[in-house]
């Protein structure tokens, strides 16, 4: 079994990192909302631990997809604009755009996790 996926040619890989961001965002929101509505005997630490775990998982996945994008971009050996009418340049463009989106998604996941530093309860 190979651990690192081989290169695939599809439009959809472009959206990998933003989809991870969306999943992370929804999971954090749902966890906090359900816990705050239904809180049992467990403390807010459950939410904190859950968000930390999900954030680390999301960041790891984004880094992995970022590495794949970097590979698709030829490890940065070619500079943009990637506007030649060839399948190679199209592929490099995809890799570069995907890498940029991985960067944005990484930052955006960190943003969503930031509230943990400031808020330690549900208080409405």
């Amino acid at each position: 079994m190979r651990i690192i996926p081989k290169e695939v040619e599809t439009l959809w890989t472009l959206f990998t990192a933003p989809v991870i961001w969306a999943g992370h965002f929804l999971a954090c929101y749902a966890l906090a909302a359900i816990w705050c509505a239904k809180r049992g005997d467990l403390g807010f630490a459950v939410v904190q631990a859950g968000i930390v775990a999900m954030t680390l998982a999301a960041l790891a996945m984004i880094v992995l997809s970022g590495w794949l994008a970097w590979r698709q971009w030829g490890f940065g050996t070619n500079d943009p604009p990637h506007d030649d009418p060839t399948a190679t340049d199209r592929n490099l463009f995809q890799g570069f755009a995907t890498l940029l989106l991985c960067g944005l998604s990484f930052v955006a996941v960190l943003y969503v996790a930031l509230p943990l530093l400031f808020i330690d309860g549900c208080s409405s």
Partner: protein
Amino acid sequence: MTTLKARIKRNALPSAEKIEEEQLRLVWKTPIGWRYWTSVNNTQVGLWYGGAAFAFMLFGGVLALLVRTQLAVPGNNFLSADFYNQAFTLHGTVMMFLFAVPIFEAVAIFLLPPMLGARELPFPRLGAFGFWSFLIGGVFVCGSIFFDAAPSSGWFMYPPLATDKAYSGIGADIWLLGLSFIEVASIAAAVELIVGIMKCRAPGMRINLMPLFAWYLLIVAGMILFAFPPLIAGDILFEMQRMFDWPFFDPTRGGDPLLWQHLFWIFGHPEVYIIFLPAIALMAMIVPTFSQRPIVGYSWIVLAAVGTGFLSFGLWVHHMFATGLPQISLAFFSAASEAVAIPTGVQIFVFIATMLAGRVIFSVPMLFGAGGLAIFVIGGLTGVMVALVPFDWQAHDTYFIVAHLHYVLIGGMLFPLVAGVYYYYPLINARMLSPRLGRTAFWLMFAGFNVAFFPMHLSGLRGMPRRVFTYPEGIGWDWLNLISTIGAYVFAAGVLVVVFDVVRPKHREPRSEQNPWKAGTLEWLNEPEENWGVRSIPIIESRYPLWDQADLMQKVNEGAYYLRSAKENRRETLITSVLDAHPLQCQRVATSTTITIISAALLGGVFVALTFELWILALLSGIGTLSAVLWWLWTGTGETPEKKTKDVGLGLRLPLYASGPDSVGWWAMFITMVGDGTAFASLIFGYFFYWTIHPDFTLGQPGPGMRWPMIALSLFVAAWAAMLGARRLNASGWIDGARLALVAAFLLTLAASAAGFAGPWQHDMQPTAHVYPAIVWILVIWALAHAAVGSVMQLYCLARSLAGRLTREHDMELHNVALYWHFMAITAVITFAVIGLFPEAM
């Protein structure tokens, strides 16, 4: 054909090229007389769409002036309180739903085919149907104010005010049903645009060469698919409460008004970006032209478009900061609201970099674009402020918000749009708009806008709440409001100058050049006098083919490329692959018809009749709509071509028929069902939302039990399997077996629906008693309605097969219906698992 012969006669000895050209012209000819309105060509539909949206904008503008006149001085009685409520509600509604969103569907339908080098979008009749739906729904919603029946609860229709029939009158129904109808049009446009951009680009236009406008529109259309359906789901719950007293938003019976706010803003916030991105897309076309160089950072624009598209779905709760949600929840949305500033900023820096790197020509479009971005940046900065929860608590529901949203929308959308009008007007009738009038209009609008809206920040910070119809004097709001009103009239004068410039007769002016701005993108190949889009479909090798590919315009116009003729008298365009735009198929597209108008009118009849609770008329209109759509499909789609392949020129032969994932119809079904699935997910969200707000959300009410839901689930899965069997048997050539499987699938669907109904029915669940039975019923009704549609599709396939129109080789319908059934199976499994198992698990 007589015309062709007559013309050939006049032209003594026409060359073969001339005959080909004339035939192509005839095939794409716009109908004349009253039949002009039966046209479905993107050029006409785009123009009508745009014209109608502009007319609605002017109507909304008049309403705004009424509002501003009323607020000019304290204690004014120019408008009554109730009429004021109708005016501001309709103003917001019209501007958002009848102008801002549709105008970009209009621009996209008009511009995309020439920009992509296509003759036409893949589903012209769907586009026309969308336009007529939009027009009928828009006139219905706007007309209500002349009968003192306009919606008056604000453009986001919050319950409990808007669900209270005594306070909100019929206006709320008009809003809900009229707009639901228009949402149908938006989703139709989204389907058309996504398939068009992914599959109809000129050969060679790989995704790294695609015009940025197309990138933006692709993202926007995808956003529409995920943003509009939650609102449709919300509308259904809302109307069920207003019509039948199902208590979705009534706290005394377990409901919660906050669910509406969630569903509305899951739509409403992405919608802001659905409006903004296409406007920025216009700038991404205009800035390189007037900087006389390619855009700097093409990939960064793609990053910004995709990034904004995603992040914009994580912002909706920032409209609900004052509702008492847990602070940790608010903080997530505050964080995402700040994060979205990153991709938004990137696009603005890309434009600035492009201008710095090029030699800028300061034309009227650049003036409007730059002015708009300046205004937008101010709106963006106040947006960063109100995205912070503590600041928002101070500013919430004050004029500060009114100022913020107008800065964002007018700077981010209206100004770039006017820039687009000045830029693209030569494509409409080969004339230029007046630079002098343009500059006058710009300065009136720019100055008027800031004079009108900047003081609103201050009146908001001084505590003036939005939506008050008057205010007492001497509390510091008087002169600020007077200044705003003066500014509003100056702004309106600027808009009038633009309108005058657009409509003034120009037939005496000289024809402009084909590419007056010396732009580099393909849409400038378009000759306004011709309806065929492009004379021949070129091979693209650059992001700016008119700059980089020598003699491209001349060669295209000489018919040197693909599809130079229309020998079979059919309208055709090329279907190409998603990533590299390799030619795959020659797609025949539909021609003028009245069926789109008839279908839209009948569907409009359903919504209007429902508004007035005329059940029989609604039922009859519904049957009429179904019949019209079936007739449309039967006569206009899935045609078996007279030959397998066709020579499209340059030695290339392409198939004329495709089914399954190779066909555009399959993609359209897939995209539609993704939107449909989003609406379903919103209803499921509602189910679990009610679970979270109650300690025991069934509140002792009976549930549907486990037995019937599980039987329904199994039968639906069996029906799905039978559908797949039908497709496979047909493909293997055993046609009778396929027909039998279709009959079996149909019978299983009926049995499954009956079982699904039996659960809540046998347990006597009363939807008016409490929200739990109501939400269970809604989920079941949703599944059964989809099953009903699914069974009509099964019968349709059976009929096509019996009529010999669905064969082993020509099985597009079966593929599409099987795809529908994948989604149907998912819907049924989730519905019946949730309603049957979840209460037991709890």
